[in-house]
């Protein structure tokens, strides 16, 4: 093969590669190029929702953008929203609106990461009287409003009707008291001769998301609202004695190994409730979505969770997603215009119906109930008015406190500690943390 004299083919490699890279560089700049400026104010809105939950909010955003011609809300869906938001706030370029979890509000308020909305709400006529108190209160920290409700949830007892029938229980008569719950659970539980569990009627540790709620269900509190951790109060000890009674009845290791079989399967067809391995469990309004997606033929019902004591009926956990305006947001006024739109009955019902949740407003349209796919939506709305609601305490150290309670609950269910011991240990560990936290707040002039 004759070679062309004097031509070094390698000499072209680097220039050709360089040109190609420049081409890609140009493309990358084009892709992230800001759109040509229009006359609108662009409000950056970051949300944690994806899939159908995002679609529901996108519809509200589109409706707002269409409703006027001065403000354009640009929504960004991002799953690890806390990391991104905290980074952006500390970096000084936060979005104008951010969708957070209700239990994060205190921490953000403590760190001055979100602004108060009281004055703007007053001017706009958004008042707490319009909202179900349990939901409005989530956004209030030390008497200041930092967040407005977006999509709320309450919890109730979910039970498998077919299993009720199978063991001779009336599926229209779910347990009403904790004693009934224990007895019915016993009937529904199936064990092999060697003691291995095949099916459980009820397990306090399933799904295990609200281990902290058992105390409030028994009339206990987690904090006195001032300077004392009250986790080892007699009511709380009574609650965790009840939690441990299941381990005593069925065996701690038998329950542990049974539960290990479906660990991490909540968001899947192998969820123990859907595979009829667990007959009754405490779950939120969202459970319908999971059943509908993964096991649409399941014969189930929802009912108020049984009462631990006669004076504490309809216990429920309050769960809420919220909207906040971060500190340093560029377009506060316009961001609030958007919040105002979302917080109308029309806006919230459009959002909450799309997400298949309940609305945080007291006023509910007939259409909302009529079109709601969850057959028990009225029950979940009723639960929001319950006297025995419990929500995460407004403490910036809540995430550590919650972890401590989760660990203590494991020790209690595994019977490595008595409930009194475990609760005392948590109280003794958390009290100094609370003292430090309160001292920090005091130093910042916030008490």
């Amino acid at each position, binding site marked *: 093969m004759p070679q062309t004299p004097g031509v070094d083919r*390698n000499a072209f490699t680097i220039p050709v590669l360089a040109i190609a890279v420049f081409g890609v560089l140009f493309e*990358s700049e084009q*892709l992230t190029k800001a759109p040509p400026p229009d006359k609108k104010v662009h409000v950056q809105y970051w949300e944690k929702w994806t899939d159908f*939950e995002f679609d529901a909010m996108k519809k509200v955003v589109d409706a707002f953008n269409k409703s006027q011609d001065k403000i354009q809300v640009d929504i960004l*869906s991002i799953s690890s929203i806390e990391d991104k938001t905290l980074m952006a706030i*500390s*970096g000084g370029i936060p979005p104008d609106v951010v969708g957070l979890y209700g239990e994060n509000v205190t921490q953000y308020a403590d760190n001055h990461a979100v602004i108060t909305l009281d004055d703007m709400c007053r001017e706009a006529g958004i008042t707490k009287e319009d909202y179900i108190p349990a939901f409005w209160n989530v956004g209030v920290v030390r008497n200041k409003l930092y967040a407005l409700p977006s999509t709320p949830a309450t919890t109730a007892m979910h039970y498998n009707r077919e299993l009720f029938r199978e063991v001779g229980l009336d599926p229209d008569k779910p347990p009403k008291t904790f004693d009934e719950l224990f007895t019915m659970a016993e009937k529904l539980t199936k064990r092999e001769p060697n003691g291995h569990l095949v099916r459980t009627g009820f397990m306090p540790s399933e799904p295990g998301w609200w281990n902290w709620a058992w105390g409030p269900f028994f009339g206990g509190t987690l904090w006195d609202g001032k300077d004392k951790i009250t986790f080892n109060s007699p009511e709380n000890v009574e609650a965790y004695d009840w939690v441990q009674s299941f381990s005593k009845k069925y065996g701690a290791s038998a329950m542990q190994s049974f539960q290990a079989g479906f660990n991490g399967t909540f968001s*899947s067809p192998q969820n123990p409730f859907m595979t009829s391995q667990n007959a009754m469990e405490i779950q939120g309004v969202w459970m319908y979505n999971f059943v509908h*997606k993964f096991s649409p033929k399941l014969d189930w019902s929802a009912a108020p969770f049984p009462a631990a004591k006669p004076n504490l009926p309809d216990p429920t956990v309050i769960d809420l997603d919220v909207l906040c305006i971060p500190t340093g947001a560029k377009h506060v006024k316009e961001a609030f215009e958007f919040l105002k739109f979302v917080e109308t009955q029309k806006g919230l019902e459009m959002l909450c119906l799309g997400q298949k949740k309940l609305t945080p407003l007291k006023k509910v349209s007939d259409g909302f109930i009529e079109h709601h796919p969850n057959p028990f939506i009225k029950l979940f709305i009723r639960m929001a008015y319950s006297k025995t609601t419990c929500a995460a305490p407004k403490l910036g150290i809540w995430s550590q406190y919650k972890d401590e309670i989760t660990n203590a609950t494991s020790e209690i269910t595994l019977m490595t500690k008595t409930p009194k011991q475990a609760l005392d240990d948590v109280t003794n560990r958390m009290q100094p943390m609370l003292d430090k936290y309160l001292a920090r707040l005091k130093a910042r002039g916030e008490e």
Partner: protein
Amino acid sequence: MQSQQKLILARKVLIQITLIGLSIVFLFPFAWLILTALKPIKETMTVPIKWIPSKFMWGNFYDAAVYGHDSLGYYPFVVYARNTIVLCTLIVAGTVASNSVVAYSFARLRWPGRDLAFGITLATMMVPFPVLMVPTFALFRHLEWIGTYRPLWVPSWFGSAFSIFLLRQFFRTIPFELTEAAKLDGASEWRIFRTIVLPLSKAALAVVALFSFMAAWNDFLGPLIYLLDQKNFTLSLGLQFYQSQNGGTSWNLLMAASAMVIAPVIVLFFFTQRLFIQGIAITGLKG
């Protein structure tokens, strides 16, 4: 003599069996991923694992590729794939171009403070990314680069300690006689680097390129922090859209999308396998 041959054969068989066994262990998650991608949703998370789907749902791959089109108005998977390719190209080009020059200097040139500078370069490997996250974010914010791809690819044009170390180790193995001879013939350092050292270092460069490609392709935290428009997201960030907070995860679609996301890395590895393994062996990276 025969018994010795038998012993050798037995040893070989034992080694092969061990290797095959280990390969199966490593293939286990991958097989699960592919088979889950082909299952109907009902069979995705069964315990014990149901390996073979009752029906092979090849359509899951199509569904995963067009997922999100209805609400966003574009095909997120395709758009994110393009964005990822653009980013990877710039990052790989930057990594190879900058690190090879720096490594050449550390390996072949003599200048005062060289070893100290090399030591400091290596020390930067000890600082974990989360520690640098806030200061670098502040820097890019000051440059008004947030929301663009620049914070993701520009740093790769300024060298990384790991790649510099790797290439330096390799460059040091090239006989000095070769470059000295070129120098005597009047070649400049740049010419020596381009015409002698680089062509001899293809294996090491391939390793650096592949490592940086994999890091860029799989990077989640960088795009999460710096990108502000959903249209600019990358594939690793886009995988979040297959799960919802309160509505269940489409595991089969998530796995189908994951399979498509990792496919290019696997294909690339197979094509460059020989170079890659050679490079790992020569640069002394093997454990």
